[in-house]
């Protein structure tokens, strides 16, 4: 007998100024089911959940809960209905005790006072069901994230959640903690609980979920029973082409002899504990090195070691064959390295500053305090790059917060180009950008290499890596597992390299 359906979302569409975040997404959930919701960053998973829980108002589509159409206006209302979310940041209060967090807002009272004894005792009972024996009087903040998450789940269930949404619960957990979590999830499932499990970890999805829904770029790709799809198929659905058109657009392949000129940068077992395992790579002038892998595979961590944002605790980094220790970005910049970060809003742009100011920033830092760029100079430089990269903005004085994502990305790239680097790291430069701008950026990357720059190009989209790179590093689980060159660089090969690691059942999920 099929389990009764508890939740149905149909045709959900949501857009923000300039961005279509969700377009016609369907999703159903049954009681006693663990349903995984997957997609790379920017695919729309969190937007979908926020629409479901009333944080955002949808533009179109229907939500039916327990067979009845509903309008959810606020997270509180969602909670009252029985739809509870446990976020990645664990929205509890770390400075209060475990027991208190479980009961905050609904503490049992006796004789007009909070009944602490009852709270502590009940907390112990509740947590025992989760196989946890904690000192419930200790502050929540003193416990590991894994425990905090479990407490958050316990709280949600105490609030009579019928639909439990877990948003990236395993991102910061180690293997044992993940196993414990899954144990509890299976127990809850057997008690009839409906769970939405949002994650980007392919292996975990196969371990625990009954069905998988994949989103990509705001679009609904499909829902598949876990037993009926293979890992490779899943990965291809996650990373596959978004448009036929894109693959037809001609982007000249890098020269065959790219990188002949010699290594700009080389690493010898450079690594950092808990961040990325020691890797030995080289990046040559005039070459584009692509960096492929799923979310969480360590690509940004690799980049941060090469740019000095984090310091390595093992191995060596050699620039022009001289060993260097990069303690901060400034040192890296002095050596001619630049980084366009993954999160352009939080780490890249200074939104209240103008396009001009954002563009000349790195250059100015490189010039130092004594050589100031006058406003005329700044304007010239800014306009040069606006033309060069075809940045759509009414003027160089426009505030960057008003530009579209693609143009914002171009501003950041312009910033680094203006500083005349010898090695440029681009972390997800084409994420959340329309097709046209994507192609422009890809063309730019290839052109930069031809002009002699060394480029490290990180992306979740395999085909653009395949199209632009002379060498491809494949990352999996915070380790560089394979290096592909020349003829081997093809979507399918890269995809397989990633999938293979999953199939091999590497010990860490």
């Amino acid at each position: 007998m099929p389990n009764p359906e508890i939740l149905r979302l149909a045709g959900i569409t949501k857009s923000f100024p300039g961005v279509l975040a969700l377009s016609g997404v369907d999703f159903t959930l049954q009681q006693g089911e663990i349903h995984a919701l997957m997609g790379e960053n920017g695919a729309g998973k969190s937007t979908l959940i926020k629409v479901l829980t009333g944080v955002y108002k949808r533009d179109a589509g229907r939500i039916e809960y327990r067979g009845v159409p509903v309008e959810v206006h606020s997270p509180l209302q969602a909670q009252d209905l029985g739809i509870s979310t446990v976020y990645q940041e664990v929205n509890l209060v770390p400075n209060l005790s475990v027991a208190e967090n479980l009961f905050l807002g609904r503490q049992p009272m006796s004789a007009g006072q909070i009944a602490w004894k009852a709270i502590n005792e009940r907390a112990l009972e509740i947590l025992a069901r989760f196989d946890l024996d904690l000192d419930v009087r200790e502050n929540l903040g003193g416990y590991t994230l894994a425990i905090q998450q479990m407490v958050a789940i316990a709280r949600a269930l105490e609030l009579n959640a019928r639909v439990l949404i877990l948003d990236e619960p395993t991102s910061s957990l180690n293997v044992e903690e993940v196993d414990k979590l899954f144990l509890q999830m299976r127990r809850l499932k057997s008690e009839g609980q409906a769970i939405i499990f949002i994650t980007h970890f392919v292996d975990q999805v196969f371990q625990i979920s009954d069905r998988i829904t994949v989103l990509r770029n705001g679009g609904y790709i499909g829902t598949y029973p876990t037993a009926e799809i293979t890992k490779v198929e899943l990965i291809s659905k996650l990373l596959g082409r978004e448009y036929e058109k894109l693959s037809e657009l001609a982007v000249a392949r890098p020269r065959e002899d790219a990188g002949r000129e010699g290594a700009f940068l080389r690493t010898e077992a450079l690594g950092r504990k808990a961040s990325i395992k020691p890797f030995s790579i080289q990046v040559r002038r005039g070459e584009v090195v692509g960096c492929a892998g799923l979310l969480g595979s360590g690509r940004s961590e690799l980049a941060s070691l090469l740019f000095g944002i984090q310091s390595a605790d093992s191995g060596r980094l050699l620039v022009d064959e001289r060993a260097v220790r990069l303690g901060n970005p400034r040192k890296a910049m002095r050596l001619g390295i630049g980084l366009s970060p993954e999160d352009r809003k939080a780490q890249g742009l200074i939104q209240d500053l103008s396009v001009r100011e954002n563009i000349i920033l790195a250059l100015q830092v490189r010039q130092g305090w004594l050589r100031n760029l006058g406003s005329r100079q700044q304007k010239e430089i800014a306009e040069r790059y606006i033309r060069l990269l075809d940045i759509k903005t009414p003027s160089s004085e426009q505030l960057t917060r008003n530009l579209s994502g693609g143009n914002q990305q171009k501003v950041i790239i312009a910033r680094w180009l203006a500083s005349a680097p010898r090695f440029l790291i681009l972390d997800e430069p084409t994420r959340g950008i329309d097709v046209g701008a994507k192609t422009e950026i890809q063309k730019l990357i290839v052109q930069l290499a031809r002009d002699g720059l060394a480029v490290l190009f990180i992306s979740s989209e395999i085909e653009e890596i395949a199209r632009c790179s002379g060498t491809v590093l494949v990352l999996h689980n915070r380790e560089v597992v394979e290096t592909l060159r020349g003829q081997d660089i093809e979507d399918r090969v890269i995809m397989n390299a990633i999938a293979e690691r999953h199939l091999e059942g590497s010990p860490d999920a």
Partner: protein
Amino acid sequence: MSRAERAPGKTASGRPGGRGWRKRIPLLSPALVFILIFGIGGLLYRNLFSLRVLANLFTDNAFLGIAAVGMTFVIISGGIDLSVGAVISTSAMIIAVLDQAGAGPLLGIPAALAFGALLGFLMGCVIHFFRAHPFIVTLSGMFLARGLGYLLSWQSVPIEHEFFSVASQIGIPMGENLKLSVPALMFIAVVLVGAFLQRRTRYGRNVYAIGGNEQSAFLMGLPVGRTKLLIYTVSGLLSAIGGVVLTFYTLSGYGNAAFGLELDTIASVVIGGTLLSGGVGSVVGTLIGVLILGLIQTFIAFQGTLNMYWTKIFIGAMLFAFILLQKAFSLSAAARRK
């Protein structure tokens, strides 16, 4: 169960007993400091180490202490209230002016309390509904209150009703020549009520939650808006009560009274173990902080040769030490968690 789950420094069963001494540190250190100063002072000046001095500490600092209890709640919630001194002063002025006009304490005191509560409520509204920075809002509250005080009377206004002079003299006898005065009793009462609120009511716990993470508190369904309004209203009310207590000793209203008191209040709250960033603290700690401040002043008075300005320097130095200590603790806690 793996031991790794538990916070470090715990017994195998994870039960109380040997638990959470670390949690107690914010309260222990000010207590230790107080005992230390009292002890040293007692060694240096035989008369310092006496019940009389202790009782006087309560009496003389009652108005500061009562206002500091209100400030404790504000700071724990992550805010700040700069209007405290002004409200104390103007409340006293309201009582004095009404007294001059013939209305006794039955009208004067409620009027003063209403003033404090109303001002607090208005500030709370602007802070919450317009998401304005508490610093600026309570700063204007301070200007407003002071201005009203000066408006009522530029000069000092004496209070003549016997109620006040009686209140300043009576007290609970405590041995030879010693009385626990009305201000001291009120101070202790406010501290007890405050401690009860903090520990035993949902309102009190919500204050901690908001200070810990306002966003989470909201998502958890706590009545953030209502709580914040209450916090500022109560702070205003308590400052007004402080003003009433002030009239018991000064028997007058004076526009420049309690000048700069907000700083002393903040200092006692911080020295008492409350973090200026919010989420951690206690009313009992504030009590100790107030006593420490008072003790420093007494110490200096006993010393005789040091000028009173040394008080400020000592308080500042103590504040500095406590802040560094708090920073060191939070850094080591963060490192332990990694």
